[in-house]
């Protein structure tokens, strides 16, 4: 059962806003905040269950941060995002990680696709920095095994 959007929004708006503020500064964070929750609202009826909503909204927010960075800098000048062939890493990672357990998948994508640090991933997943580190490395181990 997906909770009413109001409940979801109230639970996560402040931490999403803080995250966007850290990444973009206050001015851009306001626009990015609105865009994040409007995108979430558009996709909301298609969600299948109410699990991992926090990781989900942080994934949307992270994507908006990346889009914002791309808009502001010419292509190829995003050293921290490991761009190859003009594609940010998360676009490659997302399909590869489809089969991982949700928490590991979120940790891997947020770490290697969006370049979030473990404290931010911990916050996004509703756990701790060390749990986020563990989930990401467990995910990477699993990927190595699967893609050997």
């Amino acid at each position: 059962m997906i909770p009413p959007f109001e409940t979801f929004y109230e639970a996560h708006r402040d931490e999403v806003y803080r995250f966007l503020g850290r990444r973009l500064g206050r001015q851009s964070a306001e626009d990015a905040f609105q865009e994040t929750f409007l995108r979430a609202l558009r996709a909301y009826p298609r969600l299948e269950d109410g699990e991992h909503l926090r990781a989900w909204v942080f994934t949307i927010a992270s994507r908006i941060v990346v889009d914002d960075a791309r808009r502001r800098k010419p292509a190829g000048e995003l050293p921290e995002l490991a761009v190859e062939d003009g594609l940010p890493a998360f676009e490659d990672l997302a399909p590869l990680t489809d089969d991982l357990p949700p928490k590991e998948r979120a940790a891997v994508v947020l770490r290697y696709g969006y370049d979030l640090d473990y404290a931010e991933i911990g916050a996004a997943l509703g756990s701790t920095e060390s749990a986020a580190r563990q989930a990401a490395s467990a995910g990477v181990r699993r990927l190595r095994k699967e893609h050997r």
Partner: protein
Amino acid sequence: MTVSPSLDERFRAAAAAAELLDVAYDLLPDTPVGTLLVGVTDRGVCRISFDPEPEHHLELLARVFGPRVLRASKPVDRVRRELDEYFEGKRRHFDVEPDVRGIPDFYRQVLAELARVEYGTTTTYGTLAALTGNPRAARAVGTVMNRNPIPIVLPCHRVIGASGSLTGYGGGLDRKEHLLRLEGAIL
């Protein structure tokens, strides 16, 4: 750093303007019958409640109308205006449509008959039961009135006991009496 009230309101307004909501709701504080919670859909008004605690209603609304339930002021403006006019004695009939999705058939039939009971008049549970073809279902009609999701607009306050006593009201007898007095149905 928390979301400022103005940013919060901007998001809610944008969500409503983009027509992304299944239900928009708002609280109407300080009406003559206390604070009301009002919910609307793109089809009309779907909820009026004397219990202004939103959390009691959101899940129910989400289940019936869809999960995109959000507090937003603008979509509620029309109902807010009509209710204001009603409480000022300037409106005898609501133009906003009731959205009765999710209500079982028997309830719907009773509510459809109820909608015809005119301003300033009263009827009885038994009469309403007879009008829906179940003259002995007065008690069941009472249950429907008690669970009416859109009171005031669907005027269950106009239904009283055969003896003329006010009997009961989901929002409390004080409110029923207030509404009937406002309409001039009782002195």
